């Protein structure tokens, strides 16, 4: 499973989001050390990385929470929605956990089908 964590220094939410991600991975029996961490520093890189804002977490290429259509790729703080609907600078840890489980199940299923 490939887990990417992309952040922009101008948004202060990335340490909190990374800590949440690492906590979820540990709880799921996975190694937080495998997370690929990449800093996005320019608008051009944001476009190249298809970076909708900081932080962005992708598991096997899939964003853990789909970004709204039409949002430009840019250096900005990303708005997440918690499960109770409140806006937040970091994703809901339950959404992170579910995304990890989905990806892990997909890997298992693919292995079984081989």
């Amino acid at each position, binding site marked *: 499973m490939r887990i990417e964590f992309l952040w922009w220094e*101008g*948004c*202060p*939410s990335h340490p909190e989001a990374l800590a949440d991600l690492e906590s979820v991975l540990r709880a799921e029996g996975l190694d937080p050390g495998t997370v690929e961490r990449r800093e996005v520093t320019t608008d051009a890189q944001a476009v190249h990385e298809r970076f909708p804002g900081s932080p962005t977490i992708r598991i096997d290429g899939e964003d853990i929470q789909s970004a709204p259509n039409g949002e430009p790729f*840019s250096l*900005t*703080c*990303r*708005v*997440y929605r918690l499960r109770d609907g*409140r*806006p*937040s*600078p970091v994703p809901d840890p339950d959404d992170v956990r579910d995304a990890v489980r989905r990806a892990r199940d997909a890997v298992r299923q693919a292995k079984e089908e081989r």
Partner: protein
Amino acid sequence: MTLAIGDEAPDFTLPDTSGDDHSLPRDEVAAVVFTCNHCPYALAWHDRIVDAARDYPDVRFFAINPNDAERYPNDSFEAMRERVERDGGWPLPYLHDESQEVARGYGARTTPHVFVVDADGRVRYAGAPDSDHRDPGQRAAWLREALDSVRAGRDPEPAETEPVGCSVKWKR
């Protein structure tokens, strides 16, 4: 540089989303909140600030958006107006600091960044609304403590906290 506690708060006159001008009063306690549309921290704290504005009808509240709308279109005057309309109105005016002079005068660093100004026009609190953007139970506790203290003639405790949020988007 951010205004220090005890500094005189700069006057301002800015338009709200209806086009009406608002100025800092000189004989009433005021809460000046730099905020915006696009920042998740500002959004996370918004309801708590709105609730405080409703709970302190004797305090003049101002929300001021200073961000560069060219780089952040969600912070345009039109987007501000649409947001207030969508919410069915706010209990505090949402002001547009297009020149960014007011934000520079206060030394606003983030959205949100809260300043409480006493009836003599002096800054008595500067910082975050409360200690945790994740916990709505905090109810903008630092802001409320500052308002309670200033209205009672006491010094707020704390008088200054680290503002937390997105950096103000200055024009290049």
